[in-house]
């Protein structure tokens, strides 16, 4: 019983990371029908931004500001989210928007996204070298033990953050006018300017949301697994993308369900089998889900009325 609860908590934590990253894929896809393959690397950049912000604010060795760790944490979260959002918007501005203006086929935009991801990875490698970075400890680790179940405050924080982000985004998408525009644009792009809504504003807002949450995932991940390297976004990005597709890409509920599903499957497999089988089993199960429902769990096949 204790082992089960322990595994559920671990699965929720991993699911939270996947969900936070998956929603970036799903938001951009929902608006542009573009798979932003650079998104995993935007998450990586988010973790690095958090690292540099934290190190600078913490100080030490006679440099930086020398602020107390808890205050540093409180500042690093918004700083990483804002700056990572800036990175996402910059990519949109310099890479995707020019192609869109020229009416390029979606295939070229997807290839551009892949290349942007590689540029971010290798740009990081060139700037900061291949050595890994150790993320400083910002929050004193507390372990709460109930019987044989132990939970760290960090795990709780990650899970709570994912839930809050979901509620926040759900509110935006269903209740606000810009959220309605985000849903409407995927249905009929042409009619958006006819409503007086600038298409670019909707797209930029979408990138701000998706990349900002990748920045949040970046700092939370770096605090939980404090070793950073330029390729850290690649595998987790692919997995989150698959989670988004399985959940039904284009729907934020799908990103969260898919993310948590992947977390549960991975932890579940490891609980019973050698950990080397984890990804094989996980992706086989996801394949079967797509085989049964190709549009993903929340996806709907679109119908048009003449």
């Amino acid at each position, binding site marked *: 019983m204790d082992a089960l609860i322990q595994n559920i908590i671990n699965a929720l934590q991993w699911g939270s990371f996947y969900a936070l990253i998956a929603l970036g894929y799903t938001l951009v896809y929902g608006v542009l029908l573009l798979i932003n393959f650079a998104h995993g690397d935007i998450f990586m950049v988010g973790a690095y931004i958090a690292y540099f912000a934290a190190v600078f604010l913490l100080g030490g060795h006679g440099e930086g500001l020398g602020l107390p760790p808890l205050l540093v944490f409180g500042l690093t979260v918004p700083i990483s989210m804002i700056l990572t959002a800036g990175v996402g918007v910059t990519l949109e501005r310099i890479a995707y928007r020019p192609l869109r203006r020229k009416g390029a086929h979606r295939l070229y935009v997807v290839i551009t996204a892949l290349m942007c991801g590689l540029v971010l990875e290798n740009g990081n490698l060139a700037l900061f070298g291949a050595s890994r970075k150790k993320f400083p400890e910002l929050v004193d680790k507390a372990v709460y033990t109930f019987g044989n179940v132990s939970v760290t405050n960090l795990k709780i924080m990650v899970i709570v953050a994912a839930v809050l982000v979901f509620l926040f985004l759900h509110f935006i998408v269903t209740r606000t006018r810009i959220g*309605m525009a985000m849903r409407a644009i995927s249905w009929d792009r042409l009619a*958006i*300017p006819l409503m007086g809504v600038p298409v670019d504003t909707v797209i930029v807002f979408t990138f701000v949301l998706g990349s900002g949450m990748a920045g949040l995932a970046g700092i939370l991940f770096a605090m939980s697994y404090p070793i950073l390297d330029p390729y850290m976004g690649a595998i987790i990005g692919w997995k989150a993308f698959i989670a988004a597709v399985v959940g039904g890409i284009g729907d934020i509920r799908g990103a969260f369900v898919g993310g948590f599903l992947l977390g549960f499957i991975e932890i579940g497999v490891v609980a019973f089998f050698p950990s080397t089988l984890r990804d094989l089993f996980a992706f086989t199960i996801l394949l079967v889900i797509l085989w049964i429902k190709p549009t993903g769990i929340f996806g709907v096949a679109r*119908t048009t*009325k*003449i």
Partner: protein
Amino acid sequence: MSETLLEVKDLRVAYGRIEALHGVSFSVNQGEIVTLIGANGAGKTTTLTSIARLPPPEAPKVASGDILYRGESILGVPPHDVVSKLNVALVPEGRHIFGNLTVEENLTLAAYPRRKAPASEAEAAFKTVYDLFPRLAERRRQRSEQLSGGEQQMLAVGRALMSNCQFIMLDEPSMGLSPLLMQLVFKTLRQLNEEQGMTILLVEQNANMALRLAHRGYVLDTGEIIAEGSADELMDDPEVKKAYLGG
């Protein structure tokens, strides 16, 4: 003579290398209902998307000529500002409603140009639209893709009204509607014109209905205007009769 609201001057536009309008000129005065009639492919939709400043590939590029609104060229105005700053709305061909949104969400989104106005203004706009089209009020919580074709057309007109427009362009509003619904939509347009002074530019293939509603009309044929005059004149014109009114 009332003020000229819209003036299209010797407009030439092209999709890629193919010229679709070969120097079209016409004007619409404040408070008027003007119709552009013509057969398929005459350039009616092209004219409206050009005025709405939609970007390519949906709309063509302007090669020469000018489009003036209240005396000023709007060629440099982005499409969303045509709606939100100039208060010119287009009800596009094929309606283009957002099927994944509810009726009410479609209308709420269309009120985007009023987002800085007090909430009471948007409420009044909702009331106007729901009074005009009680069917929409009944179905306001439904996903709009579930509406019938006629209801979707009402929604498309309703959205334009939510934007606070003073000038409304409609592209084939009768398309796919039963005669009864067609009459309802046309009756609504007349009501808007007479009661609110709405200026209307109507593009139609159904020349008969359009000329009965309009004050003036232009006949467009393969990118050129071949006839113009008051609606009565055009209805009596033997050429127009022969080509567009069925004898």
